[in-house]
């Protein structure tokens, strides 16, 4: 391998040089720089000198603990209940701000569950980061089948010899070349709670039985809305990749299948899908990696809200680094994100490897 790359290949390296140096300057150097910054307390705007703080930024992001809250009891030892009969617990802050528990100082509640009369509360040093992490994973989990599957469907549709098929190809590809910011603004109108297009369509289809939903304003629909819109936006790109895969499958295989009397489904299952194997691996990994970088949609459409339902890791990186002038905090998130994407891609690569 190495000999092939180094031996008598000067021209090749020369041609690669501009690309390599740009990648080095704008991808590799900033990455190591981010890694270095994540070990310091660097601020965006500050007269204070930068100090080396070791792994403090990481522990500030990742620390988790479980505390047990015992119900409040009155003088007779009876559990205090509010009007609805719910058990009253002391506030988590009575622990996280108490001098008795210096190890929990500054942490906040992430979520809780009940264990008998007690409440178990998971506290995190950075609740926002944890919520962003979960949202980002959910985003990736849902968008991979949605975008990849949708793109395959589109590719199958346009892989036909029909008149004017190029027009459809162009139309399906269009969202990819439009700026994501413009698309986000348009979809904000579509999702609008009052008289948005989506609500209007649903109302018309159900003859008015459907009550309008404020899609981006509700915690249970906001992330889903962004997932659907993002899947739609990127579909065209992966459609082209699928199409390339489809067209590389020899026509003779289809002819043979037709002669054998295979149904449409059987043709897809035993001819098309095996032929798309490598394409599928590529699409899977590319969508996964892209989905972890979700930012612009959130920034334009919801600003991370409502109630952190759409916080994502990259959004938090930018919010901290530039908004809150905490460059080292932002750098730490991006290093963690890098390690996550790297390991997930490695696992995907391993699981989808060719077994011989």
């Amino acid at each position, binding site marked *: 391998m190495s000999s092939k790359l180094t031996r008598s290949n000067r021209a090749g390296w020369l041609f690669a040089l501009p690309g390599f140096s740009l990648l080095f300057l704008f991808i590799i150097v900033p990455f190591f720089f981010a890694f270095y910054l994540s070990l310091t*307390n660097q*601020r*965006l*705007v*500050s*007269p*204070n000198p930068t100090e080396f703080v070791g792994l403090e930024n990481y522990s500030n992001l990742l620390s988790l603990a479980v505390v047990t809250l015992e119900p409040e009891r009155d003088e007779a030892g009876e559990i205090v209940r509010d009007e609805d009969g719910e058990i009253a617990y002391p*506030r*988590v*802050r009575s622990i996280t701000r108490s001098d008795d528990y210096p190890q929990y100082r*500054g942490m*906040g*509640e992430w979520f809780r569950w009940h264990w008998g009369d007690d409440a178990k509360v998971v506290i995190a040093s950075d*609740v926002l980061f944890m919520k962003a992490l979960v949202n980002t994973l959910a985003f990736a989990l849902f968008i991979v089948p949605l975008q990849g599957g949708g793109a395959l469907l589109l590719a199958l549709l346009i892989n036909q010899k029909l008149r004017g098929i190029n027009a459809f190809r162009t139309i399906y590809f269009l969202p990819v070349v439009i700026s994501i910011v413009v698309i986000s603004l348009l979809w*904000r*109108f579509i999702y*609008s*709670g*009052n008289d*948005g297009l989506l609500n209007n369509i649903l109302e018309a289809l159900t003859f008015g039985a459907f009550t309008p939903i*404020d899609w*981006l*304003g509700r*915690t249970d629909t906001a992330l889903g809305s962004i997932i659907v819109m993002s899947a739609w936006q990127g579909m065209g790109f992966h459609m082209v990749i699928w199409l390339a895969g489809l067209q590389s499958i020899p026509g003779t295989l289809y002819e043979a299948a037709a002669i054998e009397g295979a149904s449409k489904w059987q043709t897809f299952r035993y001819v098309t899908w095996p032929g798309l194997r490598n394409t599928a691996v590529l699409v899977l990994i590319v969508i996964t990696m892209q989905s972890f970088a979700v930012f612009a949609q959130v920034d334009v459409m*919801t*600003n*991370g*809200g*409502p*109630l*952190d339902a759409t916080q994502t890791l990259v959004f938090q990186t930018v*919010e901290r680094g*530039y*908004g*809150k*002038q*905490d460059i080292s905090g932002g750098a730490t998130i991006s290093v963690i994100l890098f390690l996550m994407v790297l390991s997930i891609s490695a696992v995907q690569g391993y699981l989808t490897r060719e077994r011989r």
Partner: protein
Amino acid sequence: MKPTKTLLGALAASTMLAGAAAAQTELTMWYHGAGNEVESRVLNTIIEDFNAGQSDWTVSVESFPQQSYNDSVVAAALAGNLPCILDIDGPVMPNWAWAGYLQPLPISEEAIDGHLESTIGRWNGEIYSVGLWDAAVALYTRQSTLDELGLRTPTLEEPWSKDEFMAALEAAKASGEYDYALDLGTAWTGEWYPYAYSPFLQSFGGDIVDRSSYTTAEGALNSDAALEFGEWWQSLFEEGYAPGTSQDPADRDNGFNEGRYAFSWNGNWAAAATLEAGVDDVVFLPAPDLGNGPIIGAGSWQFGVSSECAHPEGAAAFVEHALQDEYLAAFSDGIGLIPATREAAQMTENYADGGKLAVFFDLSSEQSLVRPVTPGYVVAAKVFEKALADIANGADVADTLDAAVDEIDRDIEANQGYGH
């Protein structure tokens, strides 16, 4: 030989010209208003008058779009490329002064005599920036709305109390004629939140940070008054008086003008559009008194001198020149801002006595309170914005405000107290 002589002559002549130009020292200046033709024209007039009016300095301006202006300044400061004269957003000034981007503005007290206090940026006992204008927020409504709902017209001397304000919202809601009683402008994310809504908090008796020390938010943002504010803020959305954080920006721009909102909490800059939209009986009501006096936000764009400027006296001369009433009036007429002095206000079309927007000048001088004057404001403002959005969306008030206090305090600590 003749051609040579001509050449020499030309050379000599051009050298002399260059020499004459060099007698004026160049001062570079950055401005946030790129893309606004009227604004640029007014500014260029001021600069041309200044350059022609004296022989020591010549100012050259470069304009940036507002969205990327602050980023450009921060980048330039890191690279050591700051211009001499900087245009600064009022609440950001202490942050930049603390970071060493700015030096005090050596301006004479006479030059700022009679200026609205909120147009003068002070930090650590020194003047760092001076503005030509301010902005103010009022409660927009129609006279016909007040009449139909049978509401008293509040005045500066006697603003609505909290009960009157809530009764007005209830009346508007009960009338069934509006989508929402009150348009707070939640669609405008960013600095609008602390600028427009922290005065409500202050009117309750709380604040974003403790202004006596500026080293903590404890006891200010989570005080009893602040909790009361939080409950009230949440009720505005829970009771359906105001559209939530997912408000469509188009509704924010047109909703009141189209009669879909009874009241709108909006700035003087939006008044021109409202008048143009044909809302002839629009009235601009003062902020309600929620217990601790009626308060609106203050502080707009101002001029200051960067720390890299070798000639602060030249920059000060330019700023003093720009502060003349005729220019304040020209800016006001051009882009609708509130001129910094009463004299200038009289020279304008809208802010002179009897003008359509005259009330805004009084609001600015009577009700305004600048946002916390501390380098930490930039971060505290972000935390405040998120806390308010979360409370509007139903988060627990006490927990949210406590968490916000923790975050602000952590940031102050990480910055070693921001020099307070």
